């Protein structure tokens, strides 16, 4: 440490740009922990954190772009499971449909019978926040249909859905056309 004696004031520009940037009076070894093996993770942590935050933001912004903002503030408390027999088409896991609508997960939507939904609104009365569940489902059904027409959804999923009877009469033509 050549500049130990002549301590520059804070904020003053240094003449020698080759010197490592350290504060006056502080030895270089104190900058680093003794865990040398952690050194390589600094940038990894930053990248990981950026990934996490980006994922969170994408989960928030995606529904907004798809005109489905109400899905964002689903508690996922699954109070809608109480619908049970009062769902006329026998969907049991409504909250899964909401999550699928939020992140545009076609597979999950179809698997849980989203294409059967007739938007009767019975589940809405069980929601602790009275979210507009039928509207969410209708938007997601449109998205799914569009994706189906564009051929984004793998045909295996559609075939399985057809064989298990997970497609309602509104969409059965589209699904059959896509599979064939």
């Amino acid at each position, binding site marked *: 440490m050549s500049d130990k004696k002549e301590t520059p004031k804070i904020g003053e520009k240094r003449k020698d740009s080759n010197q490592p940037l350290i504060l006056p009076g502080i030895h270089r070894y104190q900058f680093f922990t003794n865990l040398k093996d952690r050194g390589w993770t600094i940038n990894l942590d930053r990248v990981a*954190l950026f990934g996490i935050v980006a994922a969170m933001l*994408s*989960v928030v912004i995606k529904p907004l772009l798809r005109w489905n903002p109400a899905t964002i503030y689903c508690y996922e408390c699954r109070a809608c499971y109480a619908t049970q027999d009062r769902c006329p088409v026998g969907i049991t896991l409504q909250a899964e449909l909401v999550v699928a609508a939020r*992140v545009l*997960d*076609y597979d999950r939507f179809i698997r849980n019978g989203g294409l059967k939904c007739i938007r009767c609104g019975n589940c809405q009365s069980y929601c602790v926040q009275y979210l507009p569940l039928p509207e969410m489902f209708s938007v997601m059904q449109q998205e799914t249909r569009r994706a189906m027409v564009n051929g984004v959804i793998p045909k295996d999923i559609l075939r399985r859905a057809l064989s298990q009877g997970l497609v309602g009469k509104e969409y059965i033509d589209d699904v059959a056309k896509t599979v064939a």
Partner: protein
Amino acid sequence: MEYLGYINLGIFLALMLSTLFGYIRTPVQTVLVISTILCLIVGAIFKYAAYGIDAVLLMPNEFLGGIILHPITALLTGLFLAGGLKASGGFDALKVLLRFLRRSPIGLVGTLVILINLPVISSLPCGRILAAALLPLLFTFGFEGGLGILTKSQLIVLIGAFTRNAMGSCGPSPIGGVGQIAEGFLGSFFATASDGILRAPQAFSLMLGTAVVALFLKLISQKIYPNDVSLREAPDAMAAQKFAEPEIKAPIEGYLALVIFVISLLTAIFQPLGKMPVQSVLVAGALLMVIVCRIRLNDLLEGIILLPVTAMAAGFLAAGALAATDGFKALGQILNSLVGVQFLGVAGMLAIFVQFQTILPLSCARILTAALVPVLYLFGPAQFDFLNWSQLAIVMAAYIINATTSCGPSPLGGGGMMGEGTMRAETGFIKGAYTFASMAIMAPMAAIFMKFLNLSIFQPSDPRFLQDIKMIAAFAILIAGVNILLLVAGSKLFNKESPNNYYIQVFGFLLGGSISGAILAFAVFEIDAVKIAQGAVGGFIAAALIGFMVPRSLSKRMTSTLSGPEL
């Protein structure tokens, strides 16, 4: 395709365990993101082989579905509110209130007891919100903090008990608490369950668990790790003369902020203005604070504790990746095959399952809860039919209380670390107390409460109300009494700094675990000798896993973990 789930589960567990034991030294969110990426890569290879490129392209959507937005945003907005309260001097106002309480007939002890139970009373979505703000206040009671009212041992007990209460408080919270996940699942049968079927058992067992943690810290932790708290005792000369208490004055904005805080909390909990998400209420409260109490936006930002938020989001990502690649299906099958083992059976499997999160403590309970509660749900009438709905509710209560308190003992940035930092202890100091309390007191207590009181309330035809209250009181005394006896007897066996202390503690864990397993089995299956024996075996196994994960000698282990072999 069948092996995919097992491979990914293996990757996840291996990464998590090696982080827990300190072989991988990175922050927990990085590890979780790495495990997400690994799982996705493995999953993508399998999916490409099975379904082709389209299925692979849809995978990002699938694993993003794992993120549960509500708890994250509720936590964030709660932190905003706490940040605003801190910046505007609201906690000074609270100090004045506490001083007032101390001079009332309740006295110092009563005030401390209320303070310890404050997190559950105010039920915020994450315990850290209050802990971050109140721990410095608790610290001032000690010699180093300035007031010098309490001694070192008392301060350790106080801070440990407070942190336990705070870290459990996210379970019974009605505004985005962990318990809501399970309540929703129970809603399939108990139509009004989402109004709080799990809240009462948790609050109940937390109160008792807090007391036992205090006892454990006093009797055992301080003896087994005698040199791991660097708090200082007041010198005798100083202790003799009482400190003159400095007069605390709070700014008027502080009182205003406190009022806004309480009002927005009550609005969020009781929703008098029509149904409204918690976040909106809390953000409105925070913004109101910005305007009324003249604080800056930076103060709101300063209130954010980044780790729980990012760890939770990263955990959800990891859980989402596991779910998208059948990892949890594999876990369900493993647990299912445990049922076939002769001496475990359903009761033993449940006793292990209930303690699962105490065995594998992550920095936020929600990471695993969101993934494991659906597995538990499948044990009920929905799929495997091991349990009927009432039994499922009992197991759910026991599971959730253990899950929510699991961020206390976590060495990966769990909330308990805040308490350890405040009492200047080594990381892991309070792990033993926390895991013992959540295993031996809270889980059986919650199960008993659920069985005898809550179920009869939610099915009001049951007439045995008063009798059940007596039953609960008897069980509370029994469970607490047995465990307290265990603690006291164990502490009598200790010699100072003897290596046997650790084995005595593990023996206590095993005993406590098997008792708790038996009680759990009794709560679920009533009097059935085979089932109770199976439950005891399951509890024994879980307790062995928990007990051997409690650090043996703290300083040596932590030193080697923290500073590498070179130092």
